[in-house]
């Protein structure tokens, strides 16, 4: 079978009708509106989530308790690696955004962009793990900065992983009769979240490496 | 119409429901018993002070004697081993921390201190307070590992304290010197002192050396669990 055909479910289900007529409240237009509103609310909630980490950063930095914000021997990790991570995040978001714009008219192009975005995201993940492995400091030895660095980047990475998973599902669904094809506007909405993650990466880069 | 009742769909008879109800109540009751039992289960066994063998001055009141051991880990106990303890690595007083002593009497304590120094955060506690005569008797080991003994009102260096025996409500605070590193293996410092009990009641006692290793600020785990470094003095 060709790639663009819907994949039938592997197991027949016990006696259930598989497809029903749509009800008006489940039309793609309704879902698109809900996705738009919901994603915005979710992003604001996530802003609060990251705000806690930035608050921790500035609060602990200002207090510098026991002169242990930057313990002796702790240096900021290389800025270049941090920059690569941010760039990859921005590239992933940009590629996704480009792909989402194209999903209505050029599905094949969209899927190509999605694949590239996924690649950029996975690379971002790998580089981040590499950075964690070569920190040049050990958060177990105390210090406010090492704690915030690990924490902020860790939770960001966790969200990036989730976003990459969802991106992979968009790729899988960008076929005829796939969800991403039926509800293209919901696909576009997810780009907002990708952009948001990239923005957080940028802000934390500035904060963690330059402040 | 697809009018399906939101509550229980099929019409079971009352007996079936009753059985389900009884079963549910049984499960909840069992859970409750576990829940409550978990909290009200009694703490460690108590130790009743024995009549004193050492005469303390000319006080006609009752005398009592309590013998305790302090170890760095329960598994290393010499005098009072506690083999089935759930926390063999915890620092502990042995054999128990629930002590029963008579009211209005003089209690003589002998504490076999086998732990090494941990150090007091506040050197203030290296003094002894509230004990008979103001001094405690201690056999210990000097820097050459030779046994020594003497009467002290405080230990010379707060950093060499291993634990303290303190009953804040009776004003009794006694520092316990850590076993010197030069001492032979298996050595113990033996500290003896007496204090007076007043009216009957429940008093708590504790250690002021943050000795709960592995916990932040050294005051978790054994310091906050009855039977290890925390206990009651039941004056009756």
């Amino acid at each position, binding site marked *: 079978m060709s790639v663009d055909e819907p994949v039938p479910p592997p197991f027949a289900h016990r006696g259930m009708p598989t497809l029903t007529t749509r009800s008006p409240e489940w039309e793609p237009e309704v879902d698109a509106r809900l996705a738009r*509103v919901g994603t915005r609310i*979710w992003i604001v909630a996530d802003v609060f989530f990251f705000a806690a980490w930035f608050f921790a950063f500035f609060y602990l930095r200002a207090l510098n308790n026991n002169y242990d914000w930057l313990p002796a021997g702790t240096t900021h990790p290389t800025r270049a690696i941090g920059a690569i991570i941010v760039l990859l995040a921005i590239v992933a978001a940009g590629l996704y955004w480009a792909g989402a714009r194209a999903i209505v008219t050029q599905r094949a192009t969209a899927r190509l962009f999605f694949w590239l975005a996924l690649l950029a995201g996975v690379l971002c993940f790998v580089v981040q793990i590499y950075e964690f492995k070569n920190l040049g400091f050990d958060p177990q030895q105390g*210090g406010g900065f090492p704690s915030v660095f690990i*924490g902020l980047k860790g939770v960001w990475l966790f969200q990036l992983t989730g976003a990459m998973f969802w991106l992979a599902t968009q790729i899988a669904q960008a076929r005829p009769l796939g969800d991403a094809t039926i509800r293209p506007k919901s696909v576009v909405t997810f780009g907002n979240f990708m952009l948001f993650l990239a923005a957080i990466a940028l802000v934390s880069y500035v904060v963690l490496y330059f402040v | *119409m697809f009018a399906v009742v939101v509550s*229980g769909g099929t019409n079971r008879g009352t007996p079936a429901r009753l059985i389900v109800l009884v079963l549910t109540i049984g499960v909840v009751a069992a859970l409750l018993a576990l829940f409550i039992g978990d909290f009200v289960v009694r703490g460690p066994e108590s130790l009743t002070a024995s009549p004193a063998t050492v005469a303390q001055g000319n006080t006609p009141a009752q005398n009592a004697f309590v013998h305790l051991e302090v170890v760095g880990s329960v598994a290393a106990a010499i005098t009072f081993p506690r083999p089935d303890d759930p926390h063999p690595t915890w620092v502990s007083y042995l054999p128990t921390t629930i002590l029963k002593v008579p009211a209005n009497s003089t209690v003589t304590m002998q504490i076999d201190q086998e732990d090494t120094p941990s150090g007091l955060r506040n050197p203030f506690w290296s003094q002894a307070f509230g004990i008979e005569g103001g001094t405690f008797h201690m056999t210990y080991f000097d820097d050459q590992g030779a046994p020594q003994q003497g009467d002290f009102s405080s230990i010379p260096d707060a950093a060499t304290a291993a634990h303290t025996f303190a009953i804040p409500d009776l004003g009794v605070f006694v520092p316990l010197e850590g076993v010197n590193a030069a001492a032979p293996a298996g050595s113990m410092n033996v500290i003896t002192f007496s204090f007076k009990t007043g009216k009957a009641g429940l008093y708590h006692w504790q250690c002021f050396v943050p000795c709960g290793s592995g916990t932040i600020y050294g005051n978790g785990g054994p310091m906050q669990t009855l039977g290890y470094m925390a206990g009651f003095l039941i004056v009756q």
Partner: protein
Amino acid sequence: MATATLGTGGPTLQASERQMVLPTNLLTGIVLAAVGYYVGVQIGNGFGFNDGLNTGVLLGYTFGSVMFLVGVGFANYPLARLFGWPIAPQSAGDEYRGAWRFLNLSLDHKVIGIQYLVAMLMAMFFGGIGAMLIRTNLLSPDQLVVPPDKYLVLVSMHSVMMIFVASAAIVGPFGNFFVPYMIGTNRMAFPRLEALSFWLVPPAIVILLAAPLFGGFPTGWTGYAPLSEQAGQGFDSYIVGFALIGTALCVSGVNMLTTVISLRAPGMTWTRLPIFVWGVFSASILGTFAAPILASAVIMQGFDRSMNTSFFISSNGGSPYLWENLFWFFGHPEVYIFILPAFGIVMELIPHFARKPLWGYRTAVVGLLGVTLLSWFVWQHHLFVSGIAPALRPFYMFSTEMISIPTGIVFLVAFGTLWRAKISMTVPMLFCLGFLFNFLIGGLSGVFLSDVPSDVTLHGSYFSMAHFHFTIVGGEIFAIVAAIYYWFPKMTGRMLNMTLGKIHFWWMMIAFNLAFMPLFAAGILDMPRRVSTYAPSLQGLNDWVSFWAYLLFASMLLFAVNVIWSWFFNPKVAPADPWHVRSIEWTLPTPLPRRNFERIPTFTSGPYDYGNPSPRPAADLGSEPAPA
């Protein structure tokens, strides 16, 4: 009926989502949870069970919870997406029928509402048992029944359990069940998130109840660091439990806000929204945006405890104030998450039983939103004596006192509605009036606490404990009970026994007030909170409190008997509209049809137009076809 209406109140699970290798249901969930826990502990401890390590327990709880959700069926949708299977938002019907449906993943908001109701009542029962044990121990100033280390564990369990309950016990059961009816829609915005917000609760409760197996935690619900970091593995229950509940609050809020914003039926303008929906809406704003702060904070605790970072350790460059600030930045909006939907219930019920329009509707909405806004600017009043930023204390004192203005509006609206009304003293109405009395005391005592100098004496004492029990038990729980009496016939198809209900009200009201009123005195007479021992001179007072607390608990048992008997053994089906009120959910038949509205209603007036000489229908049900 035509096949075009096969959809339901929520989308049922698409066939393809169910066709995983494992059948997804509650049993699979439990099995996978156990497996997940085992794997998590093994990984966290470096492959082996090791006493005293936190990483293993944290990972065990986390993996266990995730695997539970997977087993219940939450992975089906994302995995089906990932495998490229066709996804339809709705399908033919629920796979499960009867009671089994309530024990399994369902995307129907009605089922989720009932699941929430039962779970919350069960959790409240365990929290109540905790309270009884606490009061038993406080019968004597010595620590007799519960040893002092376990006493703190008990206090912590009671508080955290009740916080779990209080934060979801209105929005969960009643919000999920009735908001779609009240705004006239057949669906929730994100039914899977809605279901997720419920299914995160059982693991949270189980994990919390598991804490004593690991020694429990002694910190109370505030979890102040570094005491929390001293605590043993029990505290990991707190971290994961609150992370789960925080996630539940957040996803439930996203769903609820989007639903109310986007899915209102034609004619359901913002000024016609029932006030209960406004209460849920404002609480959802707080839940959505405050819970992420909590999630961040408990993740920091988890990092501190398992990875030895030092967010909260002063000597290592951290600060306990960081936790206090983050916790209360979440924590103060959290207490309004409790009370705002309770305001909604009370203001919703009073017009119906006074048979008079809600007096000052717009002012009431402004009041609710005012509380929502102000609650973000008051958190440092919990830290008045902590020694942080004293120059800011006048501001926080002022903002805290400010919040009594929008709160006062609730009383104004109640007064205006009661004035020259035709009041029926039904059981729900009694509980609403009880709410007004108790919350008045709670609110006035809050003013005592808001003022910095007087707070110096009252802070951390039984006075503040009595204060928040008056607002949460006397306020929120009374509102919940009112809502149960009011909506139970619509939710379950059975009336509660109203004679028992009246007995329950007077019993509970009297016992509650006699139990908690003396605690104000205890606080002023220098009894700090969370102590297992107290001054012997206060024994008489404490014994009195314990006696009435037992009776309070007994009144709740009476309520439980009423609920169980009426729900399962009362054969009589409730009438469709037992209260003769105008709100739209009562215009629908009882038992409720599977699909909320055959046609989307068009609202032509507000829900409280009593006394209007030419009353228009609240909703024009079925006169127009649903908009395509």
